[in-house]
């Protein structure tokens, strides 16, 4: 959607003040940013429509959930009217949108607290794990992709290709379990499930909610290393999936660049292979790589749902699966909404970054 609006904006005659190039450029940028914002707004509205629709499909009667199934008819009707369920669907939908925009996601049946509050509490745990995962993925995936492209067809290249495909075919929850059995139970290299050993629990004040950072702020190195031993395995499992994707994409981008004539020219001039790879061929792929990394980061949020269940990691994924099993619809829809919104947000940000950084896409 964004690209259509954007291309429409570009097809229009350049706006007022077109005499200087800078003003024209600023106008164009503004239009494209506005276009993206409108597209984002529509996507969010669509996301809300989906969660609203799912909330309506549920076979659980929301009124019965509040008043109980022994309530007299009059009480039931009164509750129904109070909840606004007698109004037309479209009115209900706008009411729902208004609620979500003011941060009201309803009350969770299982925790008894507002869903928004619960989500704010669990989100940092997921953020910490996914961020460490993407760091692992980038640090290993990019060099692997570049190396594979430079030795195209070699054994190493084939191995990296298969690793890339394994990223699409290994169930995340299974890899987590195998990792636990091997590195925790057998080798005892890493800490077990959870974010900390039980006796460290609640020992650092949550400042950012990220235990690795909070413990450093508090100067508690013991807790830092304990937290590190717990996060290492789940983050490594997530890192594997982003590594597989990033390596695959880097390889394909690099192959495109290495086939270009300017690379041949550089080689003919006698530029060392290392410089050819990292300065000539790698520089131009930085911009598309940022998009890939953004997509991969957003994808890790999805992956964390499965991983958190395996590692009893108190993040949003664990919250969502617990809510699913308890048929706690407010919590399910709230988590879906937040994960969806973050996913869309990261995608759009990397989209905008791509436009800003790549002169051809402006």
């Amino acid at each position, binding site marked *: *959607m964004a690209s259509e609006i954007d291309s429409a904006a570009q097809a229009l005659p350049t706006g007022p003040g077109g005499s200087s190039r800078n003003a024209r450029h600023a106008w164009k940028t503004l239009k494209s940013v506005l276009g993206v914002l409108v597209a984002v707004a529509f*996507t969010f509205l*669509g996301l809300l429509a*989906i*969660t609203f629709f799912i*909330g309506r499909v549920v076979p659980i009667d929301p009124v019965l959930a509040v008043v109980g199934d022994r309530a007299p008819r009059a009480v039931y009707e009164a509750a129904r009217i109070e909840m606004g369920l007698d109004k037309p669907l479209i009115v209900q939908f706008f009411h729902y949108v208004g609620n979500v925009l003011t941060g009201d996601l309803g009350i969770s049946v299982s925790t008894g607290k507002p869903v928004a509050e619960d989500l704010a509490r669990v989100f940092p745990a997921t953020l910490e794990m996914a961020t460490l995962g993407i760091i692992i993925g980038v640090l290993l995936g990019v060099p692997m992709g570049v190396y594979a492209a430079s030795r195209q067809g070699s054994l190493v290249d084939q191995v990296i290709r298969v690793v890339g495909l394994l990223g699409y075919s290994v*169930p995340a929850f299974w890899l987590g379990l195998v990792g636990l059995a091997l590195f925790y139970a057998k080798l005892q290299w890493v800490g077990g499930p959870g974010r900390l050993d039980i006796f460290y629990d609640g020992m650092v004040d949550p400042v950012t909610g990220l235990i690795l950072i909070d413990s450093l702020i508090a100067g508690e190195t013991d807790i830092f290393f304990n937290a590190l031993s717990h996060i290492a395995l789940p983050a490594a499992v997530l890192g594997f999936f982003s590594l597989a994707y990033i390596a695959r994409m880097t390889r394909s981008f690099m192959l495109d660049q290495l086939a270009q004539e300017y690379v041949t020219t550089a080689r003919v001039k006698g530029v060392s292979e290392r410089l050819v790879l990292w300065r000539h061929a790698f520089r131009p792929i930085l911009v598309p790589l940022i998009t890939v990394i953004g997509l991969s980061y957003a994808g890790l949020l999805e992956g964390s749902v499965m991983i958190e269940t395996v590692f009893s990691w108190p993040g949003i994924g664990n919250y969502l699966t617990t809510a699913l099993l308890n048929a706690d619809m407010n919590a399910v829809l709230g988590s*879906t909404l937040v994960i*969806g919104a973050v996913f869309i947000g990261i995608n759009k940000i990397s989209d905008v970054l791509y436009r800003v950084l790549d002169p051809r896409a402006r």
Partner: protein
Amino acid sequence: MATTRDWLLDDSPSSRLQARLGRSYRLSRALARNPLAMVGAIIVLTLILVALFAPWIATHSPIGQDLANRLKPPSAENWMGTDELGRDIWSRVVYGARITLMIVALVAVLAAPVGLVIGAVAGYFGGWTDRILMGITDIFLSMPKLILALAFVAALGPGIQNAIIAIAIATWPGYARIARAETLTIRNSEFVAAVELQGASSLRVIVNHILPLCTSSMIIRVTLDMAGIILTAAGLGFIGLGAQPPLPEWGAMISRGRSFILDQWWVATMPGFAIVIVSLGFCFLGDGLRDVLDPKHGDRQ
């Protein structure tokens, strides 16, 4: 033999059948030259055969309990060991192939035609039809698939049928995008203009002339998506929202084995290997099919 081959490779086929068979023959030869694709094809074929002949391949009953022999490690009697109810894991994995095959087949049958038709209609008519249909498609596409499937299963209730429906709902938008892109390139070609001038209705143009040309890119995409579908279905089973016990679904089996992972590793590990091998098979086959059917998008080997 040589004559059959010549007949298949004839440059001027005398019948439609001969042309089609010739094309299939050429494609299968091209596919056979790609080793990874062959491995993929063999794995997928094996999956189908195992699913068909499960009762003959399994050594035990997939649901028969034997509490005296619970949690036994792999042995000559129980090739993959036994689970917490003494059921033979090998036999359960073999019967699980039926469930996996059923899930991927049903998701493909549900999602691909819906996506195909929506994409072709949007691409052919353009204008507001296109804008509205693609707007809806993009909203679904912008959601993470697994989360979308989870939310729909939450609404529909747990169970294998609902899991299939939920995965199909999360899968169709990708197909709509591809079908639209293909349709846009076909729509303005001369042969479409020719049939339109002959008075063919929109329905006729779409069904007889556009949809058949979209199929090869759809087949590639569906094959590549199979791994993702298997993983999502297994994930739903693992969380407890997909296939319900005692069905030997691989994801649900891993979930049961979770409690024993530290001491009886084989209970959770074995079904996982089945998932990895089958998903990898579909990935290899899809990659190979893309190289053969769609050379312009293929990876350079």
